[in-house]
């Protein structure tokens, strides 16, 4: 059972309160009308799926119902921290993006 910290509620709660939202900070094609099929496929379907540190979205589904980001190691399940989306983005960018 993962125990996650919700940065909105400032509470540590068990995984069952949360919903998993997949990889964080995926960027939608900037110009949807001109993006080709491969660009769309990459955005919609392709995943980094790293074995190691992963930035991921969680929603506090039975709590405040807000989304936040977690940095979790998929090889060990250890968690580096939780952030709101905007704060998490700053940390993510400072690290130079995913992996």
């Amino acid at each position: 059972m993962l125990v996650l910290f919700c940065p909105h509620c400032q509470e540590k709660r068990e995984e069952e309160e949360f919903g998993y939202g997949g990889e964080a900070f995926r960027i939608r094609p900037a110009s949807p009308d001109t993006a080709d099929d491969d660009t769309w496929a990459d955005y919609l379907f392709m995943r980094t799926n790293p074995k190691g540190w992963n930035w991921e979205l969680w929603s506090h589904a039975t709590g405040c119902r807000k989304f936040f980001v977690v940095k979790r190691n998929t090889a060990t399940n250890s968690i580096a921290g939780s952030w709101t989306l905007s704060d998490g983005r700053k940390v993510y960018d400072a690290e130079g993006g995913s992996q």
Partner: protein
Amino acid sequence: MKKDYSIWSLFTKGLNYNEGWDPAWRSAELKPSYNVVIVGAGGHGLATAYYLAKEHGVRDIAVIEKGYLGGGNTARNTTIVRSNYLWDEATMLYEHALKLWEHLTEELNFNVMFSQRGVFNLGHTLQDMRDIERRVNANVLNGVDAQVLDAAEVKRRIPILNTSRNARYPVLGASYQPRAGVARHDAVAWGFARAASKYGVDIVENCEVTGMDIVNGRLQGLQTSRGSVRADRVGCVASGHSSVLAKMAGIRLPIESHPLQAFVSESMKPVLDTVVMSNAVHGYASQSDKGELVIGAGIDHYTSYTQRGSPHIIEHTAAAIIELFPIFSRVRMNRQWGGIVDTTPDACPIISKTKVKGLYFNCGWGTGGFKATPGSGNVFAHTIANDEPHPLNKAFSLDRFSTGHLIDEHGAAAVAH
């Protein structure tokens, strides 16, 4: 050349206190180069090597494995074999596998204990029953045996199932595939390993791929924990670790790796002689020949490479099984485990060439790969040998995520199967 197993060999070795059995396969050292290297010595990888040697005349093959043979998802599934999928492409692929299963014991001279005890997919709502009828009709049109059963017939065939009208999710009926069943998971890996080894295939365990040598878009060879190896063609059959291998080749896959848990009970006298699955209540169960109930349900929602999951998934699975079979409420569970499954957006596998010449992927089987083991190896061997997909896996290319020709099998896959 090893001798075939037979009643005579069993008898004579028995007289000799079962001393003197040969190892089933030859443990090999990695040579500097091969015609074909298969990455992953699970059922699918070993089947690929076997069919490459048998049907395509390729003899210079290595199967390399980072752990031990058959120690990944081959050892971590719930052994259900069926082919009652909805769409033509998926149905034909799984039916191809089921037909190979029916003769696999004779083919490999290894008892894979394939038991065609039938599979029930229960319907609990009117919409469930409509979906079941649609799927059964699609199966019949594709030549797959399938039937719609009403609740009374389900009750007659599975007396211990809770078919009370007062159940929280009353059973309204089921789809039934008589030719479906279960097989012995380890025997499949061992049987294919032994049969492939007879053709001279090198099986190298404890050999992890650490890098790929790619020059001008063509694969030259692999870096491994046991040194480098050159190979004309490499087939990756690494289930949950496919994304890790693809990254070495600069390829992105539409795969997420999730833990899938399952567990078995203590051994009991025979009580359940078929396989029962329920999408709505969300669980499935069968009884092994040893008498254990083999139970599973859905994946853990988060991605992970840890071969374990969260306890609340086990709790929900157990609750579903007791909802279906109240008689099991005091059965004690014996073992629990998790495997890392490679799920795709359309719940269908990827058996495909890649943009790197000489590199092939067979992955994305998600929660339902075991049932396809011989068929998967058979068509993947064809794909590698001819550098072209077999007609049965043409629709399962990596391109389909760009062209939009997804094969949505979430309905037939439903509970992790």
